[in-house]
């Protein structure tokens, strides 16, 4: 690992004023520093900031501190009771040890597992070194994305938690040198386009302080379904987060997000439109799944993901509306 300095931030204000990259759980950053993918000269340790609470808000929603560990969030009684899709998604990811380390804010910024991005031995990676090309497009595609790709990057967003946050329409609270602002998670992640190295809406010096999730629709069914090569401790080939409200056999409202297939956690408004107001039946689930993958652009090695993702979503819809 390269040499760097580190300081512990005593307050949010001091953290924002410090010059250096924020480090919390370190499960992504320390790993990437060991690989030589990230080489920040200075780190700011934010793990002691008073941002580790989960609170209910007057409007019925939940406010989650950025330093709440993944394990604590997944096991929180309010999350299990009212946001089971979030608990399920977190528990489907990583290992117990990593979930004890990883934080809510950090998971929002998890970097891709694209093997070409993670190995500086490959010179061509537009995400790691802008303008150098993309080794993945000419390489092995099995784990790569089929939605939101560009000719400059096909790396998959790896998080499970973020997929559930998409379906729950979370808001991200940010504090920075210019003050506080709130960004809807749907506006937080950028598509790779011609600038795959720009991944989100955060600006220099800005810190994620909280995540807020609104009260879910009354009586909504929630499911996170993850398909992968192993039953545990493996990244998704395809996953789906569904929050559905069914009345008298009809889908009154539904929120759908996909994981393992997109360059960002993938909200599918198309699938939601195809199902809203329709009967909660296999035919409409299939139609929603078709709509979700309509614009998929698979490569030779990951064409299977298109059908796998469709079936994953159709099955998750069936489970959430049962």
């Amino acid at each position, binding site marked *: 690992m*390269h*040499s*760097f300095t*580190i300081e512990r931030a005593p307050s949010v204000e001091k953290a924002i004023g410090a010059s250096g990259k924020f480090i919390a759980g370190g499960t992504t950053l320390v790993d990437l*520093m060991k690989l030589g993918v990230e080489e920040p000269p200075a780190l700011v340790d934010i793990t002691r900031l008073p941002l580790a609470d989960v609170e209910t808000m007057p409007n019925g929603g939940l406010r989650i501190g950025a330093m709440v560990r993944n394990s604590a969030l997944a096991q929180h009684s309010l999350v299990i009771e009212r946001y089971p899709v979030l608990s399920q998604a977190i528990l489907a990811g990583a*290992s117990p040890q990593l979930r004890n380390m990883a934080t809510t804010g950090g998971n929002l910024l998890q970097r891709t597992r694209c093997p070409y991005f993670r190995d500086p031995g490959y010179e061509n990676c537009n995400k790691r070194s802008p303008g150098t090309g993309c080794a993945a497009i000419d390489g092995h595609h099995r784990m790569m994305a089929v939605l939101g790709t560009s000719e400059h990057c096909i790396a998959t967003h790896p998080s499970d938690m973020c997929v559930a946050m998409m379906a729950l329409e979370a808001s991200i609270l940010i504090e920075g040198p210019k003050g506080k602002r709130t960004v809807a998670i749907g506006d937080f992640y950028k598509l790779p386009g011609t600038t795959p190295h720009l991944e989100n809406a955060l600006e220099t010096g800005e810190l994620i302080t909280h995540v807020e999730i609104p009260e879910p629709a009354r009586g909504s069914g929630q499911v996170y379904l993850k398909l992968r090569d192993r039953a545990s*401790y493996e990244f998704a080939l395809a996953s789906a987060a569904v929050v559905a409200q069914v009345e008298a056999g009809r889908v009154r409202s539904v929120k759908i997000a996909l994981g393992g297939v997109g360059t960002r956690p993938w909200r599918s408004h198309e699938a939601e439109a195809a199902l809203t107001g329709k009967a909660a039946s296999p035919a409409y689930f299939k139609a929603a799944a078709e709509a979700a993958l309509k614009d998929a652009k698979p490569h030779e090695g990951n064409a299977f993901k298109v059908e796998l993702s469709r079936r994953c979503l159709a099955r998750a819809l069936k489970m959430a509306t049962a």
Partner: protein
Amino acid sequence: MAVNETTERHLADLGQGTEKNVGDSIGGRLSRRSFLSGLGVTSLVAGASPLALAELPAPIDAAASLAEDSAGATVTLLVNGKKYDLGALEARVTLLDALRERLHLTGTKKGCDHGQCGACTVHVNGQRVNSCLTLAVMVAGDEITTIEGIGEPGNLHAMQAAFVEHDGYQCGYCTSGQIMSAVALLKEPVGKTDEDVRHAMAGNICRCGAYPNIVAAVQQVRGITA
């Protein structure tokens, strides 16, 4: 774990080169560490090829120098109830390397060094974590527990005893990490079935494939019989 504790003592004994101690090690509990060290001593005595020595792992002092840097901050770690003043410690030193190379608590193992295998599992404030992805300076002041802190020869932790009873290992390299995970699991909301235990232990890889025996050991300590 206890086996390593015992063999660490044999390592010290081997350094003195008494035949009795060497015999005890071979007849009893011989770790890779004491085997390699013993080999080194034998090679020196026999005047064997220097190549054999060159292939041995770096001696502890040489490795420790990597972690020393006058530019680093002064760091105090609280490990197994004892305070250790590490003096100046570079920010890039992981908790795993600090434990092994500075404190010589070598029960915690380095496997993948990327948070994928679980061999480095320790507890920080009672929670199991991967010490290879933890920067030591970031856990200064926290309560750190390693395999050396949960039991000792003659007074094994129930989980250590269960691993011995059920043969929950073969080569033993992953074992201290497995046991630290298993001990932490006892306080976590884990379901009752073997399948639940397998999921809860997913962060610890055993290349020898001792998984059925590990699950049996964990279930015994939890008071759940098959």
